[in-house]
């Protein structure tokens, strides 16, 4: 393994020395200042639904870059794919916030020049240089879409309507609760505790010291007997709600849409404690073979029309607020439904996924890193 790693590092050095000029003219910082001619191919690791023919076909026509997409099942799978074969196999990845820092620190992705993406200037301010994809002022990708992790409930069976996350930790709906099967779920517990137990002094649900971390884990342990299933795929949760196995749970707006379309009496909300959320970023692989096509792709998916199309397909919110009127044209009312062009206060009520690292914001090194989160989650799932 380590030899492989070393080969990778050598390759990275070689790529840094040789390949950068391929992406047009480069500035002294090593970043390209213009996008060169497309290389004809583009290999992507994407979430299912992020490379729909609806916007891929016109892109291929306009740029001559043939898109080959591989769908990943989880953030962990994305990181593994990028780490194992990332060097030569893939040009880019649509990483969520819980994966992006891992990719940056693992040197699996390379810095990009956001000025080459015309629509980047139009992004909501919070997504221009967010902490999950920008380190020390260096951009490692272009934000794409975002969305909250909502509380989903069956309106017929859950009464009164919940207003707090406490409902998924209380025995009232024992055996009818579902939450995601993902270590990042620890942050949801921490977020709830930051309000329910202020004495823990949790300020950031992704920066937890040992005591705060232990409190979150023990809450999750108490929650476990109440849970029907930890859902792994979005369709798991849809099945659970449709077929009576779950009545309340942590969700994405996507499941709400699909269930409502199937006439299941469900609603979702952001409870009073706030919510965690995800924000996805297109990132360029360290040894991308087709960097110009990757730049063209990042520029393409940032345009208002594509942003709107993807937002509606997946049920998420565009980084580019110019997409909002187009969303309403495609599906009336959708812009408001997804908080397109949301106010800073709404946006700030959502704590976006980021990879937990040991270096806390307080300058100390006593936070639990992602490996600890994963180990604790494995312990919990048993």
């Amino acid at each position: 393994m380590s030899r492989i790693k070393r080969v990778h590092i050598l390759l990275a050095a070689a790529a840094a020395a040789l390949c950068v000029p391929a992406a047009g003219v480069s500035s002294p910082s090593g970043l390209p200042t213009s996008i060169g001619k497309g290389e004809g191919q583009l290999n992507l690791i994407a979430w299912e639904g992020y490379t729909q023919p609806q916007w891929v076909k016109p892109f291929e026509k306009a740029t001559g870059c043939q898109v080959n997409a591989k769908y990943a099942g989880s953030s962990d799978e994305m990181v593994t794919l990028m780490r194992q074969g990332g060097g030569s196999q893939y040009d880019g990845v649509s990483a969520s916030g819980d994966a992006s820092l891992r990719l940056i620190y693992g040197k699996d992705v390379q810095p990009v020049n956001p000025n080459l993406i015309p629509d980047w200037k139009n992004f909501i301010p919070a997504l221009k240089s967010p902490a999950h994809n920008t380190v020390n002022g260096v951009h490692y990708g272009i934000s794409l879409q975002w969305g909250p992790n909502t509380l989903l409930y069956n309106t017929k069976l859950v009464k009164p309507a919940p207003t707090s996350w406490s409902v998924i930790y209380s025995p009232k709906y024992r055996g009818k609760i579902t939450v995601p099967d993902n270590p990042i779920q620890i942050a949801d517990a921490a977020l709830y505790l930051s309000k329910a137990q202020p004495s823990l002094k949790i300020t950031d649900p992704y920066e937890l010291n040992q005591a705060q971390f232990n409190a979150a884990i023990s809450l999750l342990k108490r929650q476990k007997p109440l849970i029907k299933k930890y859902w792994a795929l979005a369709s798991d949760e849809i099945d659970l709600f449709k077929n009576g196995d779950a009545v309340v749970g942590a969700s994405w707006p996507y499941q709400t849409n699909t269930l409502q379309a199937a006439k299941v009496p469900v609603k979702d909300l952001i409870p009073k404690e706030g919510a965690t959320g995800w924000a996805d970023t297109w990132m360029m692989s360290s040894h991308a073979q087709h960097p110009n096509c990757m730049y063209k792709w990042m520029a393409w998916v940032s345009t208002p029309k594509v942003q709107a199309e993807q937002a509606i397909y997946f049920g998420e919110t565009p980084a580019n607020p110019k997409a909002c009127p187009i969303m309403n044209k495609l599906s009336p009312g959708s812009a408001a439904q997804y908080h397109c062009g949301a106010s800073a206060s709404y946006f700030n009520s959502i704590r976006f996924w980021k990879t937990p690292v040991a270096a806390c914001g307080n300058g100390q090194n006593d936070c639990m890193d992602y490996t600890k989160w994963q180990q604790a989650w494995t312990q919990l799932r048993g």
Partner: protein
Amino acid sequence: MAASLDTAERLSHREPGRLRAARLGLSGLFWRHPWAKALLLLAPPLLAFVLVYVASLVALFLSSFWTVNPLTTEIQHIWNVGNYTSLWDSSVFRTVTFRTVGIAAAVTFTDAVLAFPLGYFMARIAGGRSRAFIFVAVLLPLWSSYLVRVYIWRLILDDKGVLNWALGKAGLPAANIGYSNWAVWLIFAYVWLPFMILPVYGALERIPDSYLEASRDLGAGAWTTFRRVVLPLALPGVVAGSIFTFSLTLGDYVTPLLAGGTNSQFIGNVVYSQIGSGDVPSAAAFAAVPLAVMAVYLLIARKLGAFEAI
């Protein structure tokens, strides 16, 4: 051996085609030197297998003796057995291992029980047409996508699913086994069943009627004949099938993920999330567990005389 050489020589005198002589010569060579034949037969598959698969596996397992830098998740070359001691110390790995092996054994047993009477009926009782029908009925399910079959089982076992609906119609209480280890066991038994039926049928089909007649003539009852004649002769088929059902369950990841409940993690699921978090050394160490389990399984199978039953 001398006799066979004589025969070969005599025959080649009688039929002096050069090709045939060469073929007989080669046969003779192999006959005199069985090692040559064994080597020739074994070398290509083993070389291909060792070069491609075993080598990459060894490389992976080497990393189980290294550690990971928690900050960068880069692998560091510090030799240690920490990954193995933490396997031993942490109860969660034991729980997951026992669950995985236990369900794999239960699935194997279930499939053997389901398959044996069917194989017996197919091989010894059914006529040509019904045998062909059963053969096709057993094989066709294999082509309807494993994932789709797991998914349809969820619909069957759901709270408001087909099973509970049918039980309700029959006036019986609901089963409520959706999203549990019962579901995982049932679905595994379902998807791997053909892998047990075919080798069991193959073994039963080869038992000559004359053996059973001889057994009866010697005064054995039906049960004794079954126990003393049929079972030993069919055992290699059952063992071959059990190796499939046991190991396929042992290494699976998808069914526990899709159909399992809150306590359904398999070794594969844990290894998967360890690799995802960048902790390849721990993952490699835990992957040594199914390696050891399979070694023990094959040893037991050999001790039972399953491989040498004939």
